[in-house]
């Protein structure tokens, strides 16, 4: 027998009270108000709520967002690195939400989850890409270049990010190829000779990174909160890793979400390099743009596979494999002769 929606919310609120009771030392009369799902993403469920409590007779209140692992989705990612990276970046100059509490094993909240302070703003990607938004979207794209510059020049060796696998300039590309190929081989539903061709080309042409940086992994329009023409926080850090920073630039300019129409890629690169001092070699950018098409294809295949295996009933994933055709056509179009 499944719980009614109201029952599910009450159940979650009760779990949150118990979880926060264990994490808020000395807190009394913990209350959870306005608990509601936020509609976003396929891999995680997002909920917002207000938590109030008494601490030494003073009322404290925090507006929160909880990210909780969904049933199987597009990517099987671990929430722990995401929580840890936004914690590490809190005072770095990279805009992130404040990470608050983590239930890494789902002992309290049914599934692994973490809670961060709510940040004002929206993620509305369609609004950003409308022609009538060109002015403010150009300003936002310029900020995105600045955020990338800041992120990629953070001295990660001093941030305690040892939870991210180490890599070197010589192996950064190969590590990414290996990661995505293993996912592909695990989730493919047919032999897929086009993907085979793509991986062969990538393996034969890996660039050497100019430097190793923290790479967001899903750096793009649609993955930040903004108000007007100001970015308030970068979101969705679940693909974060150490690697070649050019990877983030390439991903940001995929045709699905890129701001090419009002801030062309070459202008973005110029601004990024001016602010960061990091050069962006053409061949490296091309490599990561090609890898980006393969990455998104695999993300789609993984989602489709999870639907086919019955691990999710999300109908958006039922037909997701059909999206790979366009990505792979783009890959072939960009391949040098």
């Amino acid at each position, binding site marked *: 027998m499944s719980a009614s929606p109201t029952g599910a919310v009450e159940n979650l609120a009760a779990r949150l009270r118990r979880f926060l009771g264990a994490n808020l030392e000395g807190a009394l009369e913990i209350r959870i108000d306005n608990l509601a*799902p936020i*509609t976003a993403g396929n891999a995680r469920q997002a909920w917002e709520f207000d938590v109030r409590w008494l601490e030494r007779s003073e009322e404290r209140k925090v507006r929160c967002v909880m990210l909780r692992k969904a049933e199987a989705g597009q990517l099987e990612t671990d929430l722990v690195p995401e929580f840890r990276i936004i914690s590490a970046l809190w005072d770095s100059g990279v805009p992130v939400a404040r990470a608050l509490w983590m239930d890494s094993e789902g002992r309290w909240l049914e599934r692994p989850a973490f809670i961060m302070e709510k940040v004002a703003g929206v993620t509305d990607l369609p609004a950003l890409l409308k022609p009538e938004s060109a002015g403010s979207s150009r300003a936002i794209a310029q900020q995105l270049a600045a955020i990338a510059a800041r992120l990629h020049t953070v001295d990660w060796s001093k941030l305690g990010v040892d939870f991210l696998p180490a890599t070197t300039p010589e192996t950064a590309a190969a590590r990414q190829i290996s990661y995505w190929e293993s996912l592909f081989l695990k989730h493919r539903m*047919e*032999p*897929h*000779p*086009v993907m*085979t*061709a793509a991986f*062969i080309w990538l*393996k*034969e042409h890996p660039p050497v990174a100019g430097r190793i940086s923290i790479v967001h992994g899903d750096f793009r329009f649609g993955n930040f909160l903004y108000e007007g023409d100001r970015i308030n926080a970068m979101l969705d850090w679940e693909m974060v890793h150490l690697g070649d920073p050019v990877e983030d630039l390439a991903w940001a300019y995929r045709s699905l979400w890129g701001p090419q129409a009002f801030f062309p890629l070459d202008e973005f690169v110029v601004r990024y390099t001016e602010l960061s001092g990091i050069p962006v070699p053409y061949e490296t950018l091309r490599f990561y743009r090609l890898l980006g098409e393969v990455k998104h294809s695999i993300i789609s295949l993984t989602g489709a596979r999870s639907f086919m295996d019955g691990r999710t009933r*999300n*109908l*958006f994933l*039922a*037909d997701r494999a*059909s*999206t790979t*055709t*366009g990505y*792979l*056509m783009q890959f*072939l179009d960009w*391949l040098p002769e």
Partner: protein
Amino acid sequence: MSLRESVLPEIPAGPTRRQIQAAIGIIRRVSAVWDKTGPYLYADNKDIEETLRQVGVMIERAESNGCGADLEPLRQRLAAALDRGGQRDVEYPSPAALGARNVELQGLLVELQEALHGASSPEGTGRPASAERIEIVTTLRALLRRMLKREMEITAPPSARK
């Protein structure tokens, strides 16, 4: 009235409405392509078979030039798979049979590419001369592009696009 016009307006915004939208999208795409699947698979299989025959000839040529010996087992497997006939044996093969043959042919393409990649690695021996390899890779790349174009007609036909 379509489902989009008659059902969606009755459902408030939220996860349920979005799932209904996804379902409508799937139904639309299926209705646009259900009768095209058989011809698509038939054309795809025919193209792959013809291309693999051409590649077999290229590999034979490389062998007669004194290189590509390590591709001989694969060339024989290709020849055997092509000689088995696939859809040529049946006048009106079913979509299921066409699909099974398509998966088999895809597997051969994967095997061929991996063998060529392995043969061109520094550890490979008897690798085809560079000109033959380039010709094979160019031929395969052209095939893959044609496969994707056909697939695009099935996965994103104009009638099913928003």
